[in-house]
């Protein structure tokens, strides 16, 4: 295969990954890694490096709109970034010593968990009163809805913080945004409204991924000729996905992709367990 053909295949694959990642809410990074490593025979380390770079691009690109609309809570994001960046650096360091098949198996498990989680029904809740610690840290705010600005508070700051460290470690270790865990930390534990949780989680991914990406860069995980088509493809795919989501909420498509992703994850676990990755 020529370099040109390989680049175009990478681009097309990354576009699909970005599209599926955006439609399912899983993020492009988590879809691109099995695609590169299972189908295209790219070493998992290079796949992780390219995925991490594309996480930074999609996070920053889509966060821009939400920040301007005032949905993202920048204080909550900044405070929890202490946890995710520490986790990310630890995760990146673990990645350099963890055996490859272990990373492949763990990745498959996280992927299945995230796919299942993306199908869960989301309850809408707004907490009125913040806990004392949340109040001292100014972890509250308001966000625009169809019925005007809604005020919200938060609680269980310590629990959310610990969960964010875990999310950061997985992000650094596996090269993913770990959006599912970030949303669990904010939505389920800290009781932040779902819309604020998802946009703030997305906002935090850029900084979290950068904290581990600079470690990866210095260890040689980031190959420019693989990253270039992957990052551009994932971002364009994610933009297409966002456009589709504005017009419709494709529930059946979501279930279909969750099944596809689960199969991909099982393949990855199998490859890891039989030592093929």
């Amino acid at each position, binding site marked *: 295969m020529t*370099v040109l053909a390989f680049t175009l295949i990478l681009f097309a694959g990354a576009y699909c990954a970005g599209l599926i990642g955006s439609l399912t809410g899983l993020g492009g990074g988590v879809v691109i890694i099995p695609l590169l490593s299972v189908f295209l025979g790219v*070493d998992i380390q290079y796949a992780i490096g390219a995925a991490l770079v594309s996480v930074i691009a999609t996070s920053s690109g889509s966060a821009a709109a939400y920040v301007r609309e005032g949905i993202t809570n920048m204080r909550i994001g900044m405070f929890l970034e202490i946890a995710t960046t520490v986790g990310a650096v630890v995760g990146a360091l673990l990645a350099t010593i963890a055996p490859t098949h272990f990373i492949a198996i763990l990745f498959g498990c996280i992927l299945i968990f995230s796919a299942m989680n993306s199908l869960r029904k989301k309850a809408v809740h707004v907490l009125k009163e913040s806990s004392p610690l949340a109040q001292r840290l100014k972890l509250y705010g308001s966000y625009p809805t169809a019925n005007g600005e809604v005020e919200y508070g938060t609680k269980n700051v310590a629990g959310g913080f610990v969960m964010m460290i875990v999310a950061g470690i997985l992000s650094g270790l596996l090269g993913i945004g770990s959006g599912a865990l970030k949303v669990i930390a904010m939505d389920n534990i800290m009781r932040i409204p779902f819309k604020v949780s998802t946009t703030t989680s997305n906002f935090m991914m850029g900084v979290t*991924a950068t904290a581990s990406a600079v470690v990866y860069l*210095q260890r040689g995980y980031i190959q*420019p000729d693989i990253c270039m088509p992957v990052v551009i493809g994932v971002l364009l795919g994610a933009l297409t996905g966002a456009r589709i989501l504005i017009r419709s909420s494709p529930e059946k498509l979501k279930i279909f992709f969750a099944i596809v992703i689960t199969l991909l994850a099982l393949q990855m676990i199998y490859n890891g367990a039989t030592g093929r990755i």
Partner: protein
Amino acid sequence: MANIKDKDLQYIIGNLLRWGVWTSLAIAFIGGVIYLSSHGLETVHHPKFVEQDHHMPGILQEVFQGISAGKGTAFMMLGVMLLFATPIMRVIFSLIGFILEKDRLYVVITLIVLMIIFVSVHGGLG
């Protein structure tokens, strides 16, 4: 008053993120075109991953030397590195915003995040 500043900050940061991403990708794309026009028809070889031990100053030096030599890979790498710089710039802008709002608590929190990234840039403790 504080609320107005928050809104300004949101606007600036939103634009910063958008411009950062598109500039980085444009540079990476140009690099890709240069790279493919000279290497596109070569046979692809899947290199096995080899762990390396570079340091940021060395990588930067290599990138800038490559750019002055007109190498496609160097432009692609510059695009990637600008992409890394985008969220870091966002944190720095937030820091300035919190300083202007005299929000001491969040100035400290933001400085902690910057410090962690700084440690990571410096070889990630390893």
